[in-house]
Structure formats: C-alpha cells, structure tokens
C-alpha cells in the first residue's frame, strides 16, 4: 500500500522578537492509507505544529508535505479549501463548534460549503449523529450540550464529507476518562469501518495504545516510532 502522506525533512522555526524557536526539526514520516498514527509528546514538543503543517494549515520553514502525490506547498491558499473538503477532516481539543448553529447544522457545515442540497445533507448528518448516539440532540446548540456530546458532533462534522484523512488534536483532552474511552471507541470504529487514515495528537500514553504506530516527539524531533503489536487490538 502506498503512502497517503509523506513528510520530508520538515523544519519549522518561529521568530519571536529576536529569538528563534525551532518547533520542528527535520521530521521525516510516511503514513499509509488506513493507518492510525498517534503523535505523542510532552507539552511544547511540537505535536500541534507537526499536525498543522501536515494538514497544510501552516507552511513549513523547510521540507515538504506530500498528500496523495500532491505537494502542499504548490497548492495556493485559495485552492486549499477544495483540497481540505476532499481530503481532510478536523477534530480539535476544544470542539470548535459554531455556537449559533445546532448540532445538525454544525455537522452539515462542510456539506454546505461543498454545495450539497439540504435534504441530502440532513439525511447524512442525522445518520452519523444517530450512530454517535446523539439522535436526541440534533437541534441543540453547542452550549446546551456536554463536552463529550460536543466532541461527538465535531466527529460527525469531521467525517461527514468522507475525507481520506482525519486530523485530531487532543480530541479527548477536555474529557473525563470514561467519556474519553467512549469517544475513542466510536472514533476508531468509524475510521476503521471506512478505512480512513487517522492522525491523532496526544500526550496521554494510554490513548497511544489505540494507535497502529506511535510517533514520539521530543523538542521538535521524532525520537522514536513504535509499532503496536497485533495482539494489542482486539
């Protein structure tokens, strides 16, 4: 199976005042279609930076990101929207739902931008939200939902376009351990069902157990990549 994502000697430097911070230093990584990759590391180790650059939200100082054979630095910012709609779904630690929209509307938002009709949109979103256990929360606004519920809406939003890759930055960072497990089970089930690629950032060792491979980050560098033994995942 060919790699869906190729990261070649990624380096990212931030300049604050006169000081230069190296957030990423020469990161090389290949990710296969359908793989679940976990990026693990302490705070400030450059996990989010790596994720954002891989998703094309930030430009690397050096190196290149190739997704499905397309070099991201060659895609114009203007055309990134189409690219994101097709290839990428995002889940954030703080859910990032649009406060004025209901669960259903939030979940359908990517389809609105893709120009999908309202009937088709609502049908798909309902199915997904019901699958995520939110059948009775369709018309609630984010403020009327718990963190776990909000994150499930965010997962529906990330998956609704059927993107090739799902990026998740500490998706359970704000949730208790019971809810975390529920969410993780759901997410992994949905991703594996459709053979989607999942890249998840976490600093939680336990969560890393779910992943096919774990990328250990220390001070902007990949220190180690560990592969989960087949028996771990039942």
């Amino acid at each position, binding site marked *: 199976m060919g790699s869906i994502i190729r990261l070649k000697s990624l380096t990212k430097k931030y300049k604050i005042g006169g000081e230069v911070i190296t957030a990423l230093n020469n990161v090389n990584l290949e990710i296969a279609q359908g793989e679940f990759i976990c990026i693990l590391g302490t705070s400030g180790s450059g996990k*989010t930076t790596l994720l*954002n650059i891989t998703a094309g*939200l*930030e430009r690397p100082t050096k190196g290149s990101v190739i997704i499905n054979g397309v070099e991201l630095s060659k895609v114009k910012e*203007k055309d990134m*929207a*189409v690219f*994101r*709609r097709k290839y990428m*779904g*995002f889940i*954030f*630690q*703080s859910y*990032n739902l*649009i*406060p*004025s*929209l209901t669960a259903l509307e939030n979940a359908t*938002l*990517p389809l*609105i*931008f*893709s*120009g999908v*009709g*309202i009937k088709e949109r609502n049908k798909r979103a309902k199915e997904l939200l019901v699958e995520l256990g939110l059948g009775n929360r369709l018309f609630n606004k984010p403020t009327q939902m718990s963190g776990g519920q909000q994150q499930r809406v965010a997962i529906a*939003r*990330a998956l609704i*376009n059927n993107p090739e890759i799902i990026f998740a930055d500490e998706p359970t960072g704000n949730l208790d351990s019971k809810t975390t497990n529920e969410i993780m089970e759901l997410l992994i089930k949905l991703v594996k069902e459709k053979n989607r690629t999942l890249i998840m950032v976490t600093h939680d060792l336990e969560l890393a157990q779910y992943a096919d491979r774990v990328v250990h980050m220390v001070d902007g560098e990949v220190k180690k990549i560990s592969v989960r033994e087949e028996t771990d995942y039942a």
Partner: protein
Amino acid sequence: MNKLDLLRLANKNLWRRKGRTILTMIGVFIGTSSIVIMLSLGIGIKENQRRDLERWGSLNIIRVYSGVRFDDQGNPLGEANQLDDNAVNEIKQMEGVVGVSPAYEFGGEASWGRKRGYIQLIGVDPSQLENLEVSISEGRLFTPTDRYCIVVGSQVINNFMDERAMRRGIYIPPTNTDPKEMLNQRIAVTVQNSWGEKGQKKVFNFQVVGIMDEKNMERSMEAYASIEDIKKMRDFMLKVSNNYPQQGIMAGGRNSNSQARKSSQKQEENYSFIIVRTKDVAYTKKVSQALRDAGYNAYSIADALEGIEQSSKIIQAIFGGIGGITLLVAAIGITNTMVMSIYERTREIGIMKVIGASFADIRTMFLAEAGLIGFMGGGAGLLFSYLASYFINKLAVNYINMGMPMEEGAVKISIISPWLALFAIGFSILIGLISGLYPANRAIKLSPIKAIRNE
C-alpha cells in the same frame, strides 16, 4: 455554496447581535428615508409643474405653422416649409408620430337659436380625431361620412350671448353656462367674400354632435369640423374678384406674404397648420426638434418642459445629496459593525476555513450579511417613507390646496414613484454590499491557524 443556504446562514449570524444589528439598520433606515422623502418632494415639484403645463395643452401635441421661423433668441431664420400634402406625408413618416392631420382654421360670426357670437372652427381629418386626443364628454365624434358636423370645446358656449339682451344693450357675461346646452344645436356661420362691389355672403349650417371634455384649456375655445367642410368655407371666402385686392382673409392669414403673392394660387392650397400627435412627451420633444431641424415652424407645450426639467433636476440633486450624506454615515456604520463582528468571529471564520469554506464562501457570507443590513434597513426606510409621504400630502391638502377648485384633484407634493422605490431598495442593498467589501476582505485574510491556535 448554495445561495439560499448562504442567505440563511448570514441572516442567522446577523441576529446573534440583535441590538447592534438593529442599530446599524436604523442608520440605513434613516438614510434611505431621507433620500426617498427628499427625492419624492423633488418628483412632486416636477409633477406639479407638469400638471400646470398640461392645463394649457396636451404634452403630446405639436402644431406646425407656416410663416417665418425664429431661433431661440427670437432672430428670424427665414421662411418655414410649406404646409402641403407632402409635408403631411413627411411628418407621418417620423418616428414616434401617432397621428397627423392637416388643419384649416376659420373664425367667424355665428348664431344658434337666439344667441349670437363668434366661433373658431378648425377643420381636421375626421379619421384622425381620436389619434389627436380629441375626446368627448357628451355626444359623439363626427365620422368621415358626416357633413357639417362639429364637436365644440366646453368654453365655446361662453362666446355666445342672447340676441334680445344684446339689443337692449344689456351685456350680461355668461355665467353658469352648461356646455351641454349646445349639443344637437344648429350653428349658423356666416362667411363673406370680396366678390364684386359689396362681396357675397353665405351661411353654413353646422350640427353640434359632441362636446369635448375639458382636459385642456387650449382646446376649450375651439370647435372641430371636417377639413372638407372648412375648405369649402375657405374657398368661398377667398374668392376674390380680379379687380379687387385680396381682402377679408380671416383664416390662413399667416400664409399671406408679399413674396409668395405670385404663387398665391398655390398658397391657398396650403394648410393653416398641421396637428401632430406623438406617442409620449419624450417623443414630443424629439419630434418637435426634428421638425425644426427640417425647417418647419413647430410649437408644443412640451417645449417648456425642458427648462422645468432642468431646474427640477437641480432641486432633486440637492435634495438627494442631503439624503445621500445621511446614507453615507449609515454606510460607515455598516462597515464598523461588520468589522466588529468579524473581530468577534475570528475563531469561527478560522474554523470554517479549516472545514472547507473557500475564500468566495467567506466573502459572500459577509457580503450577504452587510447586504441584508442594507436591504432590511432600506426596506423599513421605504415603508416609513410611504407613511411620511402620505402625511406630508395630507398636510399639503390642508395648507396648499386651500381655495383650489375641487375637480383639480389634490396636489401631491411628495410622490414616491415605483422607480424611486426600486432605486431605494437597490441602492440600500448596494450601500450594504460596498460597506461589506472591506470587512469581507479582512475576513478572507484571517489566517485559520491564528484562529485555532488561540485556544
């Protein structure tokens, strides 16, 4: 992104900050109201002047005379074109001309029953009567087959006085006369010529078949007859014995001039004037200019409109300008609101970009919000303007129309034409969109990463 989804989303976003949105709309509301009310006053002034003009004659009628032409400053330009059948045909071909009739004019002594007086007869082509806006309030129009039938203006009756009263030397100016009294009466018109020593007299009898309605003053003193009949009267009148000089020409006087004397036979064939009816006022101006350019002597009430329209344009520009300043302030208000809104929604915009909103999506979304503010504010402003206009006119009836005759109809000093209404809505939307341009571009430039990173 689907247009309807976009409008719904924009509308939803708008009402998240009800207070601020409404305040911004009030700005547009005031701006639109002041522009519409100001312009409606301008239109009202123009319409009133136009109505005043129309009282003197139809704006769609041109009369073409013979004789010497003058330019705007009153300097003579030389002899105008001859008014013969060629001229009639030429005018018929002109664009915007609906009806053309040659006319002979004859004025003379007349009597009916015991009344005596004076009548001004105009002979026209009977088939063109309706085209020439001759309309009847009582009776009927005469047809091409009718002989010696006339329709009279509503004031014609006032030119007649009771014979006995006159003989007794009492002059009673006619009052409370009813034009209908003349209907179906026989009018005897006496014509005299210069044939022989004393000349000859002949009486022509006309039957009044219709009374013209009193739409304009120009025609109220006139009576219309078939051109054939009037030509017969003229021919009789112009019959001159060879040893006498021409005398007693009461009609076609404008035709006579020394230089054309030699061809007097031909001159007599010429019409007194030609009546031209155009499609509308715009054509009246065009056709009468074209006629003058072609060397005719053309007059129309619409000629006076030019100056009126010029001055009303200036009034409208001033009024519109005052309203425009208000709307400019409102536009700045929209921009301000949108910039604030974008600042508040930085994060949301970033998220939308991350989940696949294109630049165009973001731009249209914010332009739609700004446009909606313009549309709603402008719509409310327009509604209010209708209300204000109604009350202004109501007040005007009490103050300005006092002492005016009832049938004149209420003078409206504020008129909101459909075009003005359409313009108001369109313009307020446009103002919204323009005001939204800068904020929308700012939203586009927002980096999604900045929005997401500020967790």
